[in-house]
């Protein structure tokens, strides 16, 4: 990393990437070419993607976008199917069925704070039940004490749906969040913590590994919402063993996503 060289010879999976513009700030090079270029620059082999369109106003259009991105680059991009619970149950059921039939239902993404709807709300029952049936990962945007999807709420969902793999996004964004997320991860085995975030606190990754073990932590960057390079540097320079870094950077995701 200090030589500016891409990580080579190790599997690197970014469990939390996006695609496209965002309404409230400028994101240069936010298209598929820009995302793949940034992945190539640092050596991210696979990105699991939920387009910004999907978590904004048009979840179905976003799912189409990521399906196309995956089909164009099947070895590099895996899709999250995103569901917006503010739409009719029939529509949500049809959307889940559609991607299941096409063999692209490989994981779900929910963004409860954008949707302003709780992660455990009734409109998301179909999503959770499908994830339980198929043993799927569910990436959930979270934050410390978030009223829609706190780590505690996601922990309870992980208990209710034990075959799912619940990924608490942004688990390292504050010391309060780290305490909450790691406490929940210690209570059950099917809860995972992603590192995505701009606030890179010194010692945070080491603290999380000490608390829950390296095998529950997933590398993620929010690319292109954020530039991935600083987050690569944070893990690369962390005071951890190489084996722990291998787990965090890719081997845990390989297990969680069945790569």
């Amino acid at each position, binding site marked *: 990393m200090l030589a500016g060289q891409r990580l080579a010879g190790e599997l690197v999976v970014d469990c939390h990437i996006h695609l496209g513009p965002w309404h409230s*700030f400028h994101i240069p090079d936010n298209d598929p070419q820009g995302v793949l270029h*940034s992945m190539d620059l640092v050596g991210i082999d696979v990105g699991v993607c939920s387009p910004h369109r999907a978590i904004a106003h048009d979840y179905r259009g976003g799912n189409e976008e990521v399906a196309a991105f995956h089909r164009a680059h099947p070895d590099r991009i895996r899709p999250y199917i995103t569901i917006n619970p503010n739409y009719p149950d029939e529509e949500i059921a049809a959307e889940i069925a559609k991607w299941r039939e096409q063999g692209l239902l490989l994981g779900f993404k929910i963004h409860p704070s954008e949707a302003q709807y709780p992660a455990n709300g009734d409109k998301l029952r179909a999503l959770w039940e499908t994830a339980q049936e198929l043993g799927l990962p569910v990436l959930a945007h979270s934050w410390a004490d978030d009223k829609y999807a706190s780590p505690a709420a996601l922990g309870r969902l992980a208990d209710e749906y034990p075959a799912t793999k619940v990924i608490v996004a942004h688990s390292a964004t504050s010391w309060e969040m780290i305490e909450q997320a790691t406490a929940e991860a210690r209570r059950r085995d099917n809860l995972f913590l992603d590192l995505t975030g701009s606030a890179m606190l010194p010692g945070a990754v080491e603290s999380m590994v000490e608390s829950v073990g390296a095998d529950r932590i997933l590398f993620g960057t929010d690319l292109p919402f954020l530039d991935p390079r600083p987050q690569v540097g*944070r893990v690369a320079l962390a005071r951890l063993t190489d084996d722990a870094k291998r787990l965090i950077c890719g081997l845990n995701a390989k297990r969680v996503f069945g790569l």
Partner: protein
Amino acid sequence: MPELCFFDCNARLGRSRRPRPTEFTTKQGLLREMDRCGIARALVYHAESLELSPSLGNERLLKEIAGEDRLAPCWMVLPPHTGEMTVPDVDAMIAAGVQAVRLAPVTHKFPLNEAASASLLAALAARRVPLLLSLEESSWAEIDGLASRHAALPLIVLDVGYRCDRNLYPLLSKHKGLRVETATYTVHRGLEEVCAHFGPERLVFGTGMPQRDPGGAMAAVTYAEVGNSSRQMIAGGNLQGLLEGVV
């Protein structure tokens, strides 16, 4: 790629109100972390100058880093009206070996308007002393006003975040003396875009240690696709140039 010589514009020493166990507080702790990461030099301020008293903290800083060539002092300053600065003016400060300053108008509760701050800012501008100002201690409107009134002042804005370009770009275009510290500037392809639109001289490497992880800040520069010369400018050359530019 040639090895970069990193000069961190934004590091802190000293005990603070809400420390974490991993945070260093001493010169030795800072130097150990710099050695671990590969940072050659740091411009450093003292937590006491922010959290208690600029004058007391500045004095403590000089004592604690005395004789250490790798650490350069950055003083927290106040406008002169209340007579709280032990070192009375900018000339005396430079004579004491201090070539960069920080202001904290929100924490220290003073305005950046002309009535309160003009004489201080004019004195800094006259000597070309770099001023480091956090966006958390000001606003884009204040930065615009300050840079407009004191065009010769080298101004480095800290803590800009990744949602800032719609505010930042117009100001980089308008104010040639405005620079951005890189620690929190995690816009996708942000360093490349600023270099392309405004030049590499507008970016100054900083980490925010010990509150922020240095690895992230360093990777942003080591991986920047801007060419070796621009990378070195950002990593340390720009800051070195600003400090050498003090007249």
